């Protein structure tokens, strides 16, 4: 039957994406300044072949990056899809809420107040490795709360949300520039700039646990909401007529997506582009039905992030490029290609 064919095709695409992701993992483990072959990695993974302690420790570090890439990709892919649906806007993402500038401001404030670490000459000494992520996270949350409150006052339409976010975003940008201009030295500014390049290498094992829990909870929530996302794209009235409170779904989704993106940003900097490009690629493959689109976007985002991180490790080897840069370099041509195809 035709219907079964449609659904089966979508499931097959999802399975293929899982396979691609699984194939990319050993590849990603094998590339980098320190040479390990794909085959050695496979042998170590499947047959437990022992490797030299050096190789093992390099592989562990790379494994951490890969896992971080998969989890961050899942969070950003799912959040991007959800935000595009509830804001009825193909350019939307949790970062539309202005999270990235707010988080950067948080980092600046952490440095300014001396909580983030003190500077003597050209040396920054960190007081605690968690201070900067916590400041970034808290500022992102404050921004989300303000935007949602403003949008709530204005009736929670998709337009209200976007306008409130844009206004606040410019405000934060101005504050950030002001602090940088008046109060911070070159080294601190460089640190903020460096922080803002998204990089999965900063994620440690402890952070991975937090990321795992967030990615798990967030994806369950978004998949459970998938039929509502289908309805949201038909308009608030239609959704309401079918028993779905569109404003509530919009509010809840923004909160969940913003939480996810804030956690990711606090740990790894700004990787906003992924939210934008992954849902579009996933949509080409499985269409706009969110039961399939949400998991497929998560997979596409994970694949892109792990692949971009691997490429960033060898393209200018021995320099490792932050994945945010590599991703935008790969992603923007992809997005333009998708645009021109229509």
């Amino acid at each position, binding site marked *: 039957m035709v*219907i079964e064919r449609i659904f089966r095709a979508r499931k097959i695409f999802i399975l293929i994406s899982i396979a691609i992701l699984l194939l990319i993992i050993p590849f990603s483990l094998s590339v980098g300044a320190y040479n390990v072959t794909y085959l050695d990695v496979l042998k170590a993974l499947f047959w437990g072949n022992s490797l030299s302690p050096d190789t093992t420790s390099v592989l562990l570090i790379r494994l951490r990056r890969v896992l971080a890439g998969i989890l961050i990709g899942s969070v950003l892919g799912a959040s991007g899809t959800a935000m595009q649906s509830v804001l009825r806007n193909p350019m939307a993402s949790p970062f539309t809420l202005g999270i990235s500038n707010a988080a950067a401001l948080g980092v600046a404030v952490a440095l300014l107040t001396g909580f983030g670490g003190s500077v003597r000459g050209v040396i920054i000494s960190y007081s605690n490795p968690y201070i900067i992520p916590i400041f970034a996270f808290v500022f992102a949350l404050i921004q989300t709360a303000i935007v949602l409150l403003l949008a709530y006052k204005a009736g929670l339409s998709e337009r209200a949300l976007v306008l409130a976010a844009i206004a606040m975003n410019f405000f934060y940008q101005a504050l950030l520039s002001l602090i940088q201009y008046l109060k911070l030295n070159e080294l601190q500014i460089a640190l903020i700039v460096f922080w803002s390049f998204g990089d999965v290498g900063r994620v440690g094992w402890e952070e991975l646990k937090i990321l795992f829990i967030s990615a798990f909870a967030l994806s369950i929530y978004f998949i459970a909401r998938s039929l509502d996302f*289908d309805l949201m794209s*038909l308009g608030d009235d239609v959704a309401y*007529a079918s*028993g779905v409170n569109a404003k509530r779904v919009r509010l809840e989704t923004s909160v969940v997506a913003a939480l996810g993106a804030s956690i990711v940003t606090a740990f790894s900097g700004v990787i906003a582009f992924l939210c934008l490009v992954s849902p579009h690629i996933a949509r080409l493959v499985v269409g706009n039905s969110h039961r399939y689109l949400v998991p497929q976007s998560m997979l596409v985002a994970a694949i892109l992030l792990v692949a971009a991180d691997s490429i960033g490790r060898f393209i200018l080897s021995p320099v490792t490029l932050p994945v945010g840069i590599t991703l935008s370099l790969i992603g923007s041509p992809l997005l333009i290609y998708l645009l021109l195809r229509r």
Partner: protein
Amino acid sequence: MVIIRVVDVEVRYDSVKALDSISFDVFEGEIVAVVGPNGSGKTTLLKIVDGILKPVKGSVYIDMKNVVDIPRKQLAKEVSLVTQSTYVVPGIKVIDFVLTGRRPHIDFMPTRKDIEISLNALKAVKADNLVDRDLTELSSGELQRILIARALAAEPKVLLLDEPTSNLDLRFQIEILNLVKSLSREKSLAVIMSLHDLTQAYRFSDKVIVLKNGRVYTIGRPDEVLTENVIEDVYQVRVRIDRVLKAIIPVV
């Protein structure tokens, strides 16, 4: 059996009074046409019955229960509204779209049964050959049938149609109205539809509600209600009525 009872309803949009002292009953399996000039309150009337708008005065009862007391999701199972316009997003297939109509019955994920019911709804409107088409690729006639299928997927007792025949060519107009008629007869579905074409109201309804400036001007069987005088009064247009052909022809 009375399935919809509207009692002395008044509706306001801020300061504008859109409906005033509206009362009528609709029976199971009955087709009611709502006619009246632009802005006379037809769409508002349908939204009131669907509980999307709340009256400032009076009440609407579905199955003897006051609409304001029925939880939204429960009401969505009993009443389906096909609106005048819908966002049509690219990338949504007909089957996905019709499945969204099952939302009031679905708690987590659609099951095989939900998919089957959606498919049957498509068959009922003779559009099951369109399942895998993109919504944006459909003609207006096809789209109108899909919209009705989506409404039917909720398995409602009441179907509300806002101008189901506008934008359609002559053949599709007749096709949609025949479809509505047979659905109503087979499933003893109560139907309220707004229409601009008085001839269609005459031919396809059991009862006509004539609205003028938000009030019921008159209500009753088509042949009783649709008279030269009523129409001239409501529309300021002189017409001739052919009782044999059941046609209402403007005299210009």
